């Protein structure tokens, strides 16, 4: 944001004040939005994610778009903007009981946004409902000549038709990967959401992702992200000691990836996209868990509670998000209920490229049938 200190959460940018707005900020201002400020994130969007969750302050809100999700959950603001390279909009939205959209790659300009990975970075809105996200997308979406990855494409009215219902539409449930490591309560609430969409008139179909079956999609994401991150930060390596510990390590990791493996990973994206292309010939939208677990306790290290088992959060969290960063597809996380401890659970609705309107329509159908997006954490009033 022009005139406001913008440090990327890092000592490396101490004192940095931009001379112009990022494109998304400019568009919001032109549409009459009142930009209230900036919120807590992690160092360059990739550092330690230990932010208190309004639903239980002893648990994490995840990250990196933690501040936006927290402020929305706490009813302090109605709309926020986040970035998502491997779930950083969707994970905080899921843990904080709000809605977050990672749009199609190239639909929302990344100009003026500090990057992590030019292949996987996305910018998107976080709000308390799919209706509010649709409103935001009408402002944010559209070609920006200043972003080389921006797609020149007519942008539909995301608000029109959101309440058109989902009768006659087909909902795909991926058979594997997304459900292989999932807390039972999260899965149970996701299955309940599927049932609601069936009752709303959707036909539910299991879909397979055969080309990528049995392979580690998170590892594929890492072999793209790590070298791109290291490349972006090569200019800062002489000041490596000034990074915080977690992000400093991430900057080094990509240096070990060979050029051939990086190129291989980029070519393998086509397989991931092909699997989803085939899926969307059979169905209109996909539904997966919105997170592998509910918000974990603020322990060191953070651990995902999946049933009675514990897994390092950073090793498993991205499972449900990475495939859609790799494929560049629109993916929206929204609340699906609560577990026995009143911690939010979430589902993720995914559609074909530039089909944000369909994502939003499915999410809206769920939010018309459930009250979860209207509920505030204890001590925070609903409004």
């Amino acid at each position, binding site marked *: 944001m022009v005139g406001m200190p913008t440090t990327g959460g890092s000592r490396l940018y101490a004192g940095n004040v931009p001379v112009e707005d990022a494109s998304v900020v400019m568009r919001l201002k032109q549409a009459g939005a009142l930009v209230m400020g900036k919120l807590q994130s992690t160092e360059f969007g990739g550092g330690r994610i230990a932010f208190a969750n309004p639903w239980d302050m002893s648990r994490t809100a995840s990250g990196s778009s933690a501040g936006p999700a927290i402020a929305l959950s706490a009813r302090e603001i109605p709309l926020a903007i986040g970035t998502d390279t491997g779930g950083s909009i969707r994970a905080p939205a899921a843990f904080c009981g709000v809605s977050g959209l990672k749009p199609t790659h190239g639909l929302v300009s990344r100009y003026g946004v500090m990057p992590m990975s030019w292949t996987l970075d996305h910018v998107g809105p976080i709000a308390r409902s799919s209706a509010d996200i649709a409103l935001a997308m009408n402002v944010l979406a559209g070609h920006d000549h200043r972003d080389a990855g921006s797609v020149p494409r007519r942008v539909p009215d995301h608000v029109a038709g959101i309440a058109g219902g989902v009768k006659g539409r087909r909902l795909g449930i991926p058979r594997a990967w997304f459900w292989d490591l999932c807390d039972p309560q999260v899965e149970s609430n996701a299955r309940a959401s599927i049932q609601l969409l069936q009752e709303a008139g959707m036909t539910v179909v299991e879909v397979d992702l055969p080309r990528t079956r049995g392979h580690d999609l998170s590892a594929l994401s890492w072999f793209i992200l790590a070298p791109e991150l290291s490349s972006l930060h090569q200019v800062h390596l002489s000041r490596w000691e000034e990074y915080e510990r977690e992000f400093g*390590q991430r900057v080094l990791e990509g240096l070990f990836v060979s050029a051939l493996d990086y190129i291989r990973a980029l070519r393998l994206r086509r397989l991931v996209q092909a699997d989803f292309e085939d899926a969307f010939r059979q169905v209109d939208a996909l539904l997966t868990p919105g997170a592998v677990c509910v918000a974990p306790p603020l322990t060191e290290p953070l651990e995902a509670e999946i049933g009675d088992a514990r897994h390092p959060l950073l090793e498993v969290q991205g499972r449900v998000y990475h495939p859609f960063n790799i494929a560049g597809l629109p993916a929206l996380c929204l609340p699906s209920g609560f577990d026995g401890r009143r911690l939010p659970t979430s589902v993720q609705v995914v559609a074909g490229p530039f089909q944000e*309107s369909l994502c939003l329509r499915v999410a809206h159908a769920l939010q018309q049938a459930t009250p979860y997006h209207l509920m505030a954490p204890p001590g925070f009033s609903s409004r």
Partner: protein
Amino acid sequence: MQRGEDVGSVAAGLAELGVAVPEHALAEAARTYAAMETRFASWRQVELSYLPPVIEPASAAASLSSEFESQL
């Protein structure tokens, strides 16, 4: 099969840039790489010869979207 760099070669590469990073930090990064490389290993068995070259995100999205225009 292709393998990545080791601590020695990464350190040497950094030295050429005039950058000094503590050896323990490089060792930790190497361990993370090794763990991810094990998880990535199965992807190396995937036949790539029939896949197109690296694609730009914008053109990829545009080519995919043409398949779904009729679904709007």
